[in-house]
């Protein structure tokens, strides 16, 4: 059986810095995998490599048996992988609903030809999509904020909207970069519940997370990254029990 | 009052020339008005600024003709003049160009009158003089990269080669740029016997820069060299040039300078002259009791045919013939060395 997502021997160097070193791992379908490691370990870089934002120096990524090597970000999304960003990257001057709409695929009228020559059809499908977008927002509990400009949403709401936006792409594998950082208790619980719910709906999640409580509660598997190298792969309990990893993560010199 | 129009570049980079032209017209008109106008009619010129752009010129032409029913409009620069020419034909409005010398202006419209000869005639005189009288067999050309300069280059090239000479190099300089050094260096490297220059402004700077490279060639120019600042520049010693003859009486030049603080240069003189031509036509129409329309003005112009203003201007065609002098700049003065009367 081929793995759902297979990452083989990724290497990436930025100038003198080896950001990724022989990273190989697989992710099983339907599970929540947490990617943990100290700052600068290369977690975001792995995301970038999988989603086509960064060409690794060497190594391969395959999704459901298809190679993603050399694919552009938009092609990767079409294969069913979507990601969020550590610094959100929402469209601040658009409304929450428009942000979700931007994530939806196969829009009629998303190129000028149809927009100009099939105006009625465009308007009609747009109306339908707007309703669909409301459903997606309802999924993360933002239906009331649909027509609020993103800049006026609270930080927690913005974090939720990031997830809504990639849900709208219809992707099955979601890569979330620190979805809970900066969130307070209630919002945090909400996001954790959302992640569980997404899992139960058949999505597969790869999550970068610093909060150990969150990792313990949601992760099925944990990948531990250090200096661009994958040190361990196991259940949360195993990883946390490993004194060597704990020393790297919790102790160590500044 | 009788209203005339003028569409000239009064701001922007082309304003160097445009504002001089404006002063020439204004001076002539003020002079006439001070004497009580033409048969009791005061003259007023409405100046419009086209920044040397064709679309503005067309708009302003329509404005003057439509809103003010203007019979005659002064223009300068060939681009704007050519843009307005078809309108002049359609609206039977006299366009009077006193400064631009591109050959295309000659036949652009029956209503486009040039009170200054187009360059072809002037440069034929120069080329012949250089080859035959001065014995120069090779020439290089430095021209301003605009309509006037290109026409100058083409005309000189044609005439000089026809006379038997050879053009060894040619270089353009952008309009308004007074850094001629790279072009001069390149032209000097071709070792011509004479350098022909056609640039509208910045001639004193040119003289300095020619002196700096220690040039061995003779420098020749057209009427644009009649710039008092150039003549006063010691580095212009020995330059020769044609001059579309236009001379202001001593007192007049002084009065002009007193009024505007700038020299009574070539362009003000030319437009002074153009304004006199138009006003003579108006005078005739008034005397004949005819309405002052573009059509009548044009007819009057060809009836009068020979105008004696600052220079004798003869209209056999739309373009005036005037006397042309060959001058040499010596000891900060312009001396005539040959006279070519109007054809």
């Amino acid at each position, binding site marked *: 059986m081929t793995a759902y997502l297979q990452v083989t021997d990724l290497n990436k160097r930025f100038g003198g810095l080896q950001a990724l070193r022989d990273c190989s791992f697989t992710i099983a379908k339907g599970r929540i995998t947490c990617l943990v490691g100290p700052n600068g370990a290369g977690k975001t870089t792995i995301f970038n490599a999988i989603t086509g934002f960064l060409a690794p120096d060497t190594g391969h990524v395959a999704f459901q048996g298809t190679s993603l090597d050399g694919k552009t970000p938009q092609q990767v999304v079409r294969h069913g992988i979507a990601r969020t960003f550590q610094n959100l990257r929402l469209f601040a001057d658009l409304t929450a609903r428009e942000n979700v709409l931007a994530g939806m695929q196969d829009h009629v009228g998303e190129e000028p030809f149809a927009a100009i020559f099939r105006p009625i059809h465009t308007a009609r499908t747009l109306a339908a999509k707007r309703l669909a977008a409301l459903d997606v927002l309802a999924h993360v509990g933002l239906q009331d904020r649909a027509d609020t400009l993103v800049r006026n949403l609270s930080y927690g709401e913005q974090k939720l909207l990031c997830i809504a936006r990639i849900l709208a792409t219809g992707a099955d594998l979601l890569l979330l970069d620190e979805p809970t950082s900066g969130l307070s208790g209630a919002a945090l619980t909400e996001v954790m519940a959302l992640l569980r719910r997404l899992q139960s709906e058949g999505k597969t999640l790869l999550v970068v997370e610093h909060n150990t409580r969150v990792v313990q509660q949601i992760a099925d598997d944990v990948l531990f990254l250090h200096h661009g190298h994958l040190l361990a792969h196991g259940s949360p309990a195993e990883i946390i029990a490993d004194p060597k990893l704990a020393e790297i993560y919790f102790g160590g010199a500044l | 009052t009788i209203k005339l129009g003028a569409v000239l570049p009064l701001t922007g980079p082309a304003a160097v020339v445009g504002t001089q032209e404006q002063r020439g017209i204004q001076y002539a008109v003020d002079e006439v008005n001070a004497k009580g106008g033409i048969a009791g009619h005061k003259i007023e010129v409405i100046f419009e600024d086209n920044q040397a752009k064709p679309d503005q010129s067309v708009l302003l032409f329509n404005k003057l003709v439509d809103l003010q029913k203007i019979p005659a409009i002064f223009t300068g620069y060939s681009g704007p003049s050519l843009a307005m020419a078809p309108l002049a034909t359609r609206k039977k409005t006299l366009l009077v160009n006193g400064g631009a010398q591109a050959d295309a202006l000659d036949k652009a419209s029956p209503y486009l009158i040039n009170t200054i000869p187009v360059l072809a005639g002037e440069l034929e005189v120069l080329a012949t003089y250089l080859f035959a009288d001065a014995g120069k067999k090779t020439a290089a050309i430095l021209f301003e990269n605009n309509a006037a300069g290109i026409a100058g280059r083409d005309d000189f090239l044609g005439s000089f080669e026809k006379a038997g000479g050879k053009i060894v190099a040619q270089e353009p300089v952008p309009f*308004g740029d007074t850094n001629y*050094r*790279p072009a001069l260096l390149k032209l000097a490297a071709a070792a011509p016997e004479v350098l022909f220059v056609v640039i509208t402004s*910045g001639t004193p*700077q040119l003289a300095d820069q020619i002196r*700096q490279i220690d040039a061995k060639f003779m420098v020749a120019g057209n009427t644009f060299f009649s710039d008092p600042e150039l003549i006063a520049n010691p580095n212009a010693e020995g330059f020769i040039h044609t001059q579309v003859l236009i001379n202001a009486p001593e007192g007049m030049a002084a009065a002009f300078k007193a009024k505007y603080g700038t020299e009574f240069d070539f362009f003000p003189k030319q437009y002074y002259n153009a304004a006199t031509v138009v006003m003579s036509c108006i005078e005739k129409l008034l005397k004949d009791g005819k309405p002052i329309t573009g059509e009548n003005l044009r007819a009057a112009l060809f009836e009068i045919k020979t105008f004696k203003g600052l220079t004798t201007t003869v209209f056999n065609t739309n373009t005036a013939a005037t006397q042309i002098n060959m001058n040499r700049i010596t000891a900060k003065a312009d001396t005539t060395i040959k006279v070519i009367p109007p054809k």
Partner: protein
Amino acid sequence: MLWLNLLLNGIVWGCALGMVAVSFSLIFATTRFFHVAHAAVYGLGGYITWSALKHGLPEWAALVVGVAVCAAVGAAIQKLLYERLDRSGATHLVILIASLGLSAVMQNGVAAIYTSNILQFGLPWGNRTTTIGGALLTNTQLLTVVFGLASYAGAMWFAHRTVLGKRMRAVASNPFLAEITRLQPRQVHVAVMAIGSAMVCIPGVLVPLDLGLQPFGGVPILLTATIAVIAGGVGSITGAFLLAVVIAVLQNLSLLIMPGEWSIGITFGIFVIFMLFRPRGLFSS
């Protein structure tokens, strides 16, 4: 020896351009909007100095007057115009348009006062020549090189060695932090505008000393200087100066192989292609 002459000529012109580029770079790197009225300040410097000379001041004093007036005008522009626009949350496009308006005001003001005629400084020593490596250079040109190199060195020293210079770079890097660490970004902007404007007065005098004064003469030189600033990499003084010299030399040397009317076009063509290969300029961080 045509090439040597052209090369020297290019270097001289490059130094003049480089002074404009360096002064513009200081301002642009700090404020990040296109202060196109810099061209008008350049022009103003020349006219003020010219007037001071006509009033009988010695050359050096006239230059000092010009520099001082430019500095004051630069500071005033920042305080009275850009700072207000910035406070009202104007975007860079809006500031650009306002700056265009300002240059229209300044240049036409100069044109209304001094006329559009080309004015000459008429300082005989400026045209005297010296032979250098087989080429004749005027005193003005030599002065241009001297001042050009001095301006470059001065700007480098200022930006990287003085506290005000470092403060200026700090403000550019993180305006919010600058505000809360009391670097007083507003004052720094005013200071930078004053310094940049004072600096541009020098080419504003030296170039017209050689080529004559024109009210709109600053525009083409600023355009080319801006290109040098960007191609050199925003914030890099060395990049701005070096590229200014390179552009000037290229434009001169290109005459060796093609007619002059194409040299400007080709230079800009090369620039566009260069930007495709180095989208953040030569010395980008």
